[in-house]
Each structure stands twice: as structure tokens, then as C-alpha cells.
């Protein structure tokens, strides 16, 4: 499987990452190098193998459903690039 320009642009769009025009062709080459290299996994017979979902044999822990933190809007929004009255400001999304 190899990727073309169109696929790279589609994936970049899915990942919400703007690629400068002069970065598209190098990215096609780089992704194909990496995907070509991982292609060797196709030679492994995995028909009877279950995927590994956890490296440590442990049951997922349960916790009480209660509020343990929060209520500090100023701290939560302190790192936001643009804030008004503890609300994040973004370009208009609804006309």
C-alpha cells in the first residue's frame, strides 16, 4: 500500500494539520518510506492471535462517582490564548 498526494492531503485534513504546499511532496515520500518499512508485518501469521489490549494483567479499577476537583474557572482558562469572562473565544461558528 502506498500513499499519493491526494491521500496525504486528506489525512492532513482529518488530522487538522495545515501543510505548506512545499511540504506535501516530501511528506508523500516520507510516509511511503515508513509505510513500506512497516509492510514487513504482513509476513506474520496473526490469524489465531488476539490483539494485545493491556500489557499488565489488571482489572480496570472502579471509583466512586463523585466530584473531586473543579470549580476553578480562572485556573482552567489561565493558559488559553483568548478568554473573556472565563469563556474561550473562537471565530464565529454559527451565522
Amino acid at each position, binding site marked *: 500500500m502506498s500513499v499519493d498526494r491526494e491521500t496525504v492531503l486528506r489525512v492532513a485534513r*482529518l488530522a487538522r494539520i495545515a501543510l505548506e504546499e512545499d511540504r506535501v511532496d516530501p511528506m508523500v515520500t516520507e*510516509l511511503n*518510506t515508513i509505510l513500506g518499512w*512497516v509492510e*514487513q508485518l504482513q509476513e*506474520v501469521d496473526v490469524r489465531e492471535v488476539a490483539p494485545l489490549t493491556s500489557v499488565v494483567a489488571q482489572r480496570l479499577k472502579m*471509583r466512586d462517582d463523585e466530584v473531586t476537583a473543579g470549580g476553578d474557572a480562572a485556573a482552567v482558562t489561565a493558559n488559553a*490564548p483568548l478568554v473573556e469572562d472565563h469563556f*474561550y473565544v473562537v*471565530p464565529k461558528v454559527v451565522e
Partner: protein
Amino acid sequence: MTDLIGLTLADARTALLEKRVSSMELTGALLSAMAAARPLNAFVTQTPERALAMAAESDARLARGEARSLEGLPLAIKDLFCTKGVRTTAGSRILENFVPPYESTVTQNLWGAGAVLLGKTNMDEFAMGSSNETSYFGPVANPWRAEGSNQTLVPGGSSGGSASAVAADLCLAATGTDTGGSIRQPAAVTGTVGLKPTYGRCSRWGIIAFASSLDQAGPMTKTVRDAAILLRHMASVDPLDSTSVDIPVPDYEAVVDSGVKGLRIGIPKEYRVDGAPPEIDTLWQKGADWLRAQGAEIVEVSLPFTKYALPAYYIVAPAEASSNLARYDGVRYGHRARDVRDIGELYERSRGEGFGKEVRRRILIGTYVLSAGYYDAYYARAQKVRTLIARDFDAAFTGCDALLTPATPGPAFALGEKTQDPVSMYLNDIFTVTVNMAGLPALSVPAGLTMGGLPLGLQVIGKAFDEAMVLRVGRALELAAQFRAKPKSWWLA
């Protein structure tokens, strides 16, 4: 106390308790060394004022006889651990001005034990790299140079700043994180000790996420004993990380000198790779001989799926990264693009500008392998291969207590030498990545020098949660190797 900065963590602890030195003196000496080592670029942020305030508090506690376990011991922290009120960047432009409102559990544990924060160490952007060259804050220089050469070498990565800081005596010890080798590979190429604990041993809470099923924090130190000391205080079960494991944290230091008599040490034959320099093989053989001489039995074992670990990793890790890094949107924190027309452009340009080349590349790979129609061919298959890798280790450990392998396929390389071809860079992790795929603990110990005078490491791999065994074997190697070499302080010139 003439050479304060050269002290090990254990010796500094004794010196403080015996009042031969104060934490203020020790911290001051390390801050001076750090300030004089700017050419290494090991730190993204230095925190001298906080360090001195913490040292003063430690001295007061020491004077009152209320010293905690790491009282007054100055550490460097990889800039992936969130530190409350201290900028935390993950080596990325997108977090250039991020000041966390909370503290990671690992660092909280360290401050709770009395340790002192010297600063935040440079690293590959979002821990993606094996040379520290992907950092937005510039590459880190390895304190080591080949004999008779002025060429700058990389310190490995992604915990390159921590490795460089430990090797150059800019801190007593440091923290790192290891997703595919990011503690052990830089430790090996800087002549320092690096331990990746079992997945779940240290809480991941407050550590900026890269690949959540692989990431694990660990110590980077000058000696194996120091790694034992630091790990004990980094590890904990944590309600804020549901994958942290509720198993008591042993006193690793107490068992570090137990020796290897009667242990069975496995040599996995698949770790002999074509094209590796002969020095690597020679050192590996030497390591086996050292352990045999101390009473261990050396047995050959087989890990047949080893060669598939790295390609499987380069599907699993980018897939998890593409999901984890979706949070950087230019809205809630981090870099935000200017003059955008709409919300879509805000996301795309903020992320395009905020992420560097390698991070963008990995996010795109991850997005691709998870996208509709490709999931089974790539991600599901890689997770199945991961099962086979874990089974390999299970089988090997039925016949031995620990495994011995080389840590890296070669010594430190030159700046820019491997940046053109991503796959050649990825191959640096060929001996370390298998362990992350299986979640196991592993230690890199400095074991010798190349003909050119550069450090090489050996790796000890253990069973899950048997860090004590890994440290014990590592200590036996350290005793035999007698690695005393230090880099020449060229950065002071």
C-alpha cells in the same frame, strides 16, 4: 567536599545527613555548573530561585532532624512532567508558554520526599525522537566527544537533556520517560544509568501523553544504586491513573547488592543484528562473562518475533499519539495562529505552526493507520504482533531470571547524521522498543568505551514488576565494568 557536583545521589544523601555539606551549598554548586553549561542546551527552563527556596527549606528540616528520604537532593526534571507554576513545554512550540496549574504525580512524590527542582530538561518534541534534534528549543549536545574530535554528538533521545545533565554533573539525577527507548538509549550513549520501570509502576498522571499504552517514567542517574533510590520515590499507585498498579513499592536499594550467584541470565540470540559494529557484540560477550564470573548461569534464549517489534511500534505509537495530540487545538491552551477566517483554519494553522516536522509526520501516520479501511491492515495487525512479542518474553522467562542484551546498536552519532531518513533514526531503538511493547522493566548500564572513547551500554530486561532483579543484575555489571570515564568539560572553554 571539593567535588560537590560529581557526587552520586547516595553520597550526597550521606553528606547532607552527616552535615558535611548543606543543601544550599550543593544546590548552589549545581546551579553554577548548570549556568556554565549553556552550550550543552540541556535545559529548557532553569529554576534557580525555586531551587534555592526548596534547598533552604530542606536545610531547615535537616537541622531539625526531620529529613525526608530525598531531603535537599537537587534533581533535573524532563520537560514532559507538568510542574505547577513552572513552564512545561514538551519541547514543542505549541506548548511554548504553557504553565501547568497542577503537578504530575511523579514529581509530587519527589518533592514530598524533599527533593529540590533545578530545572526542566530539553527533549525531543513530545518525546518523539532518538537524538533530541526535534526539540523546538534546539538540539542538546552530548557532553562526550570522540577522542581527538571537536564534532558535536547527539545525546540520544528523547530524554536527551536529562541524560546530558546527568553525564555533565549538572544535577545529581534526573527523571526521564520511555516510550520506545527514550530513557535507556540516551543513558547508554552518555555513559549514565537509565531505568524504564514496568508499565503501571509509576503514575502517568501529569506527564504529557505521547503513546499511552507505552509511556512510562523512570530515573536517569550516575549509578545503579541511585536508580534504585530514585525509583522507590517515583513509583506509586495513583487514583488519578487507573493503569498505575496497586503493588507495594519495595526498597530496591536494599537488594541492589544481592549479587547474581545462582541466577539464570538469558541471552536472546535475535539481538545479534547484521551491520552492528563488532564492539557491540564484544561488549555483550564481556557482559555475559562478567555475570558468569560472579556465579550466574548464562543460557541462550529465543525471542523469535523481535524483528517485528520496531515496525509494530511505528504503527501503535503514532496511532496513539495522533489521538492524544488531538487536544492541541489553539483554543484551550497552547499556540494559536493569528488572522484566521474560521474555526477550521484556526485548528489547522495552529497545529500546523505549533507542531514540528517529526510530530506532524507521526500524527499523519497515526491518522492514516487508524482511518477507515486501513485499521485492520495496520493497527489491529500491529496489536496482534504485540501479543506475539509479549508471548516471546513469557516463554523466555520460564527458563531465566533476566535477559542481557546490548542497549543500542552503536555509540552517539553526529548532529544531523540521521535526520534525513526517518527509518534510520528509528532503528536506534531496535534493542529497547521490544520491552515497551511488552510493558517490561529494563535498565541500561554503562559498560565500556568504543575505540574512539565513546560510552556504550548494556541492557538488562526483567519480568513484570521485577525491577529489583533488573537492578541487582545491573549492579553486578556495574561492579565488573568499573566504568569510571567522564567526559572532558569542553563546554567550559
